[in-house]
């Protein structure tokens, strides 16, 4: 079914520039869409493309355009329907696309009016259409739907642009794309960087110098180090030997010095003892000393008894003094002296205590004497109060009796007060009766005259006044008595307190007197004890002086004995020390010699060590250099390996790039071979003049700036006048070039396998003359592979070309011209039908 599908009908609404519904019958051999710029010709062609593929090549290849942009600005949706007829099988395929803004395109497919693939996925629908047509949208846009720009690129482009356009048409631009995608920039940068690094490392290596020479120097230094180490070992051995000796000498030295010091000391002591012995003059006569000491012993024993030290006294009595126990007696005597001293101080202390007590007692006694004086004076002052108290008691009785009498008086006073009140009331009644002048007696009822009244008043007043005065007088007397008694009572109570105070002072006075007597007694006792102690103290003092005297004599004798003993003792010590000194075997001069020698050896050792240190430092530096050189060589090796690797990869990639370039050339050559013959054939049919009779496409290989080989196309034409092959696109006129380009595209259309039998040309060959246009249309109509031609153009001359073409056609040939004009809702269309026999015109 190759190229058996033709367009039968297209219907569009709300698509790009056409908002209202437009349906065009396309079932003709030639369909001419004629109209000015913007009248909707390309919109109709794009609608066909959209219906077939669900998108357009412009949308797919553009980064700006989107599918939503295909919907007319004044419409809610774009609706496109295309009918395709399979001329061989007779099937009619209908594809409907409905696109709303922001929504996916809905697609329906019908075969012979029956919908298929209901509910199928978009991919399944797309697959079906692709299989039906046999082209992708990209291929369709290059081989079926030929735009003006492709023709222009072929006709007017530079060799490179022309080559690219042809590659696109051949579908091998992919290889060019791969070629360009293989970028070696990073490799080149890295190679440069690594080369720089290697240069830097090599420079460092050269700065280190000749490593063999360094190694030789290192060997010499190592030999020197060995020698110096040997020397150091020898010196260390000597130092060790002398250190051992010195250690031994050092250990002996303190003992030596100690012995020397002891010997000196002993000698000095001996000299001193001898001097003291010589100074003592003569020996103390022992025959005088012993009786004296024995007498002292017995007297001391008596003294100790008097001091109540019976045990010590007993010891003294028993121990008779002899020459042998003289030292022991001296000790005993000293002990006794200590005891006596102790007792002496005890007595003294007791005396002090008694003195102190006596002072205190005397002070207390003085205090009591003073107190007695004060108390006596106070008692004397209180005596008149006591006398007055006694007098009141004898006159008035005690407090209780006085209070009783006062109570009686108060009782009498109350009674008299009642009587006084009674008299006063009675007088008032009488006066009231007289004042009111009562005419009858309130007692007997007899009439009372004024005279009677006056008499009554006078008599009663007289009586009453007499009684009243008596009561008042009695009352005053009692009151006076009462007041006196109360005053005496108050005085009595005050005197009572004074008397009590006097009694208390009397008791206190008696107590003070008793205490004073006691104190006097204690004072006399203390004074007596003090006298006894003074006697005892005198006695002890006397004995103490005796003991001291005898003790001194004894001590002197004993010192002489002791000195002799000490002399012997120190002579022995001196002898022993001298023996030890000899045995010690220590020579200070030898010690000094050893120390000197050791210091020299140590100094030598330091010098050798310093020298060794310098040599080791030099050796380390040399070793470091060698190590660094080795390291640098290794780094250089690694970097070179890296460089080699990078270059290897880069070369490999360059080769791969070249492979794709070669592939491109090879495929291109194959395609050209296919297309060239066909193109030549078509050109001969289309080009009606005789100046050129044959075409040929040649490929020339050029080298690009990046040193890659690249093929460019050159179409040659055979010029009949001089039988020469000339580069057609550089020599031919625009019209000739357009025919040539169209021949190429038609050849391409015819040599590629697909199912579409329609060639769609958008504004083709704008500059060719009528004859060429006619020839072209004739050519297309003659080609059996091109079953239908759809041309969109502004050029009205195509109408005549169409008419002529239809007329001259020998077979049944139908054409239609849709004249489009600008309108707000879409193009206004005028239709003109052409057949081999008739032509009709109508408006849609």
């Amino acid at each position, binding site marked *: 079914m190759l190229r058996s599908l033709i367009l039968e009908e297209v219907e569009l609404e709300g698509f790009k520039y056409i908002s209202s519904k437009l349906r065009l019958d396309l079932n003709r051999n030639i369909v001419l869409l004629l109209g000015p710029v913007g009248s909707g010709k390309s919109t109709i062609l794009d609608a066909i493309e959209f219906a077939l593929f669900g998108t357009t090549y412009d949308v797919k290849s553009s980064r700006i355009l989107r599918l939503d942009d295909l919907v007319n600005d004044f419409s809610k949706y774009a609706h496109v329907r295309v009918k395709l007829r399979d001329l061989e099988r007779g099937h009619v395929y209908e594809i409907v696309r409905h696109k709303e803004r922001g929504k996916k395109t809905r697609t329906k497919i019908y075969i012979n009016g029956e919908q298929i693939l209901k509910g199928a996925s978009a991919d399944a629908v797309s697959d079906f259409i*692709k*299989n039906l047509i046999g082209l992708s949208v990209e291929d369709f846009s290059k081989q079926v739907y030929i735009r003006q720009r492709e023709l222009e690129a072929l006709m007017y482009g530079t060799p490179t642009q022309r080559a690219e356009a042809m590659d696109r048409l051949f579908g*091998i631009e992919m290889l060019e794309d*791969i070629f360009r995608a293989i970028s070696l920039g990073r490799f080149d940068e890295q190679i440069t960087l690594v080369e720089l690094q290697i240069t830097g490392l090599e420079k460092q290596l050269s700065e280190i110098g000749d490593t063999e020479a360094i190694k030789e120097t290192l060997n010499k230094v190592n030999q020197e180090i060995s020698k110096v180490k040997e020397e150091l070992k020898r010196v260390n051995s000597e130092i060790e030997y002398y250190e051992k000796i010195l250690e031994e000498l050092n250990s002996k030295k303190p003992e030596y010095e100690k012995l020397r010091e002891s010997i000196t000391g002993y000698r000095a002591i001996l000299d001193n003892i001898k001097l003291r012995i010589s100074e003592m003059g003569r020996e103390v006569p022992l025959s005088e000393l012993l009786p004296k000491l024995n007498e002292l012993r017995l007297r001391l024993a008596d003294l100790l008894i008097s001091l109540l030290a019976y045990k010590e006294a007993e010891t003294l009595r028993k121990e008779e003094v002899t020459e042998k126990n003289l030292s022991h007696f001296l000790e005993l005597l000293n002990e006794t002296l200590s005891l006596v001293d102790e007792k002496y101080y005890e007595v003294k202390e007791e005396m002090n205590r008694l003195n102190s007590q006596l002072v205190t007692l005397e002070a207390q006694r003085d205090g009591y004497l003073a107190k007695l004086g004060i108390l006596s004076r106070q008692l004397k002052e209180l005596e008149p109060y006591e006398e007055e108290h006694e007098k009141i008691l004898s006159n008035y009785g005690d407090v209780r009796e006085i209070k009783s009498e006062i109570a009686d008086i108060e009782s009498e006073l109350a009674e008299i007060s009642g009587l006084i009140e009674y008299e006063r009331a009675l007088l008032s009644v009488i006066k009231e009766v007289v004042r009111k002048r009562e005419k009858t007696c309130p007692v007997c009822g007899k009439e009372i005259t004024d005279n009677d009244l006056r008499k009554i008043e006078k008599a009663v007043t007289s009586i009453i006044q007499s009684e009243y005065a008596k009561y008042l007088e009695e009352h005053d007397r009692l009151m006076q008595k009462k007041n006196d008694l109360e005053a005496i009572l108050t005085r009595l109570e005050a005197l009572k307190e004074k008397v009590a105070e006097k009694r208390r002072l009397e008791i206190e006075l008696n107590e003070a007197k008793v205490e004073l007597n006691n104190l006097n007694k204690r004072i006399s006792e203390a004074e007596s004890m003090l006298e006894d102690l003074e006697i005892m103290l005198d006695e002890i003092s006397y004995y103490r002086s005796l003991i001291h005297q005898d003790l001194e004599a004894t001590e002197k004798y004993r010192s002489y004995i002791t000195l002799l003993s000490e002399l012997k003792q120190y002579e022995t010590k001196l002898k022993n020390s001298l023996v030890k000194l000899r045995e010690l075997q220590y020579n200070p001069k030898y010690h000094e010699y050893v120390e000197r020698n050791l210091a020299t050896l140590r100094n030598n050792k330091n010098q050798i060590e310093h020298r060794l240190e310098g040599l080791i430092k030099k050796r380390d530096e040399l070793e470091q250099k060698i190590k660094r050189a080795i390291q640098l060589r290794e780094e250089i090796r690694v970097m070179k390996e890296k460089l080699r690797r990078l270059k290897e990869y880069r070369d490999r990639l360059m080769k791969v790039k070249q492979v794709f370039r070669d592939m491109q050339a090879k495929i291109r050559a194959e395609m050209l071979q296919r297309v060239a013959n066909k193109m030549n054939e078509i050109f001969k049919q289309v080009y009606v003049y005789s100046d050129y009779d044959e075409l040929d496409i040649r490929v020339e290989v050029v080298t690009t700036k990046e040193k890659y080989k690249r093929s460019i196309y050159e179409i040659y034409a055979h010029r009949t006048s001089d039988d020469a092959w000339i580069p057609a696109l550089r020599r031919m006129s625009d019209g000739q070039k357009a025919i040539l380009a169209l021949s190429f595209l038609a050849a391409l259309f015819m040599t590629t396998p*697909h199912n579409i039998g329609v060639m769609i040309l958008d504004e083709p060959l704008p500059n060719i003359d009528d004859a060429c246009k006619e020839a072209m249309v004739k050519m297309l109509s003659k080609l059996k592979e091109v079953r239908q031609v759809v041309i969109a153009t502004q050029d009205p001359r195509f109408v005549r070309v169409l008419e002529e073409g239809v007329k001259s056609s020998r077979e049944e040939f139908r054409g239609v011209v849709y004249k489009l004009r600008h309108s707000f809702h879409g193009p206004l269309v005028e239709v003109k039908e052409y057949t081999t026999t008739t032509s009709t015109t109508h408006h849609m």
Partner: protein
Amino acid sequence: MSYPRGERVNNVERRFGLTELIKEALEKEIKDPEIKELALRVLEAYLRDGRKAVEEVIHELFEEAVGYAQKSNS
């Protein structure tokens, strides 16, 4: 349901047998196995994900070259 199907000649490589043509040419004409392998790797990458995939292959190769050098260094 059954319906008529077009011939399967829709895409580039099928239309011209381009991929096969390239692959055949690679297999046949390139003697160096490494170049052959690399060319096929690049082609497969491009067919899979276009130019971006090829650039990724180049990046991998670069890392491989640099990484190999570093590896031998260590």
